[in-house]
């Protein structure tokens, strides 16, 4: 149960950070805000939305209304997929550099735990922290929207798992970079650049219809295969919430393979590190 002790330790390390608290407060404000502001009146087949600021107006039929709410949920899911994900990375990115500050790692490694257990425990801790943040936000939003509108879109709840999955993939990169680079801003920027490239990489085939450069095309192909499929998974998440048919699960599978490979690289370099 030594891994559990490390996960717990990681938790406590993140808890004292302001960013963890701000995420929590932002989610709470969002959830309570919706609860207070949004008022729905259903009269027959018609729906009227009233808020603190406007008197109820009849705006839509039941079908249109459901459509709107699901779009709103998709919007929230996308916001969490981008902003929520990055706040989670902010809150956890310096775990590895902090573990490796002079005189700290010695204390851990002098214990009967292997380096693999230690680093993997830190990883699980970071994922657990992010998962709690994200699940709290998603489940809270799902609950108030459900209570207020009677629309219980279970797929919105599932989208939380997608976001956590994306975090656990991106975090393997954060960890690998953290073993070599002490600076957390540099680390976050590097991951951010990788993520920003993903829409371009995902649409490389279309782009290369217009550009005729074999070398550039090979480099782009390589980059596509070694980076997580952030953009494609965001599309999957949106489709999931909206109940559309899924394009393809390939990006998920290839992201898992990449994450496992990067995690192994981290473990390899971490095992060779001198204290």
């Amino acid at each position, binding site marked *: *149960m*030594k891994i559990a*002790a*490390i996960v717990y*330790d990681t938790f*406590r*390390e993140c*808890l*004292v950070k302001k960013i963890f608290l701000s995420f929590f407060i932002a989610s709470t404000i969002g959830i309570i805000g919706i609860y207070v502001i949004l008022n729905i009146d259903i009269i027959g087949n018609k729906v009227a939305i009233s808020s603190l600021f406007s008197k109820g107006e009849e705006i839509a039929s039941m079908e249109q209304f459901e459509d709107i709410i699901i779009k709103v949920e998709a919007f929230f899911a996308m916001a969490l997929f981008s902003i929520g994900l990055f706040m989670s990375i902010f809150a956890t990115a310096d775990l590895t550099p902090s573990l490796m*500050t*002079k*005189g*700290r*790692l*010695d*204390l*851990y*490694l*002098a*214990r*009967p*735990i*292997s380096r693999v257990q230690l680093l993997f425990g830190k990883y699980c801790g970071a994922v657990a922290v992010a998962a709690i943040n994200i699940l709290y936000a998603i489940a809270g939003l799902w609950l108030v929207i459900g209570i207020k509108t009677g629309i219980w879109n279970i797929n919105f709840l599932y989208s939380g798992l997608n976001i956590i999955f994306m975090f656990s993939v991106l975090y393997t990169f954060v960890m690998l970079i953290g073993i070599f680079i002490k600076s957390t801003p540099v680390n976050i920027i590097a991951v951010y650049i990788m993520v920003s490239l993903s829409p371009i990489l995902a649409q490389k085939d279309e782009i290369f219809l217009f550009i005729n450069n074999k070398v550039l095309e090979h480099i782009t192909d390589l980059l596509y295969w070694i980076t997580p499929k952030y953009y494609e998974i965001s599309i999957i998440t949106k489709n999931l919430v909206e109940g559309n048919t899924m394009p393809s699960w390939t990006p998920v599978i290839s992201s898992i393979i990449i994450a496992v490979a990067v995690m192994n690289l981290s473990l390899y370099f971490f095992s*060779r590190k*001198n*204290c």
Partner: protein
Amino acid sequence: MTIIECKGVVKKFRTGWTGKFTAIDGVDLEVKRESIFGILGPNGAGKTTLVKIILGLVLPDEGSVKVFGTDVKDYKIRDRVGYLPENPNLPPYLTGRQVMELFGRLSGLSREAVKTRTEELLKEVKIEQWANKKTPTYSKGMIQRLGLAQALISDPDIIFLDEPTDGVDPIGRKEIRQILLELKNRGKTIFLNSHLLSETEMICDRVGIMDKGKIVAEGGMKELTTTSNKYSIKCKNLTPDIFEKLNETASIKSTLDGTFEAFVENLESLNRVLDVLRNNNLLIESVTPAKQSLESYFIDLIKDIREEDK
């Protein structure tokens, strides 16, 4: 019984892009059970690196290291090991008590065992009243005390201490020495790194002297500090002619207050010197084997090595 065994250990650190610096240069070492073994050496000698290699925290380039007869690559040997690093960097988000709990759990102790050990040890190192404060509020001396306590949490059989009294006040130093002696009496082995000679001299049974990555001398504390055939004799009213006579059997060095040191070959010579003094009716106040301090031994040794290097 041998507890630590190093054979031909070499460690080179990369410096810059291409350079290599040999921090440990062929160390052979054996440490026996139930003793306090000290490694002495100037700053940068490689003491810290050697301890980290023995603990498996730094991987050597050559040679083998065994603790309890097992290669240190096996992390399970650390079940029986405690370690206070040089300048321990305790997790800043934890209180003293939480630090103890964390490392107790990581040592594989049960929740109850961690609880009782924590309270015992916090009392022993005298920081109970600080136990609920976060570690960044601790002074250097308190950090060392907590560092020592966490090293002892799993009641290890061997304890590695790297400059344990660094930044600790004189009373604290004495208390730490007492804790160490008590541990030794309970059958524990202690491996102590220090650049403080007097301290090492006070508690170590054996010392190894390290310089530039090599163990340049090793021996029991008594062997290193008593120089055989050297006695200090105290007596009053030494006249020049008696002085002459004594010089035949021993080389004499007199001092102003009437004491003198006699360097003799063996015990017979010593007794011949004493006969001369008694025959001349001089009153002998004391005869003691001259003791060299570890400090002077150490300084002479390092000086010799530096001269050879030139």
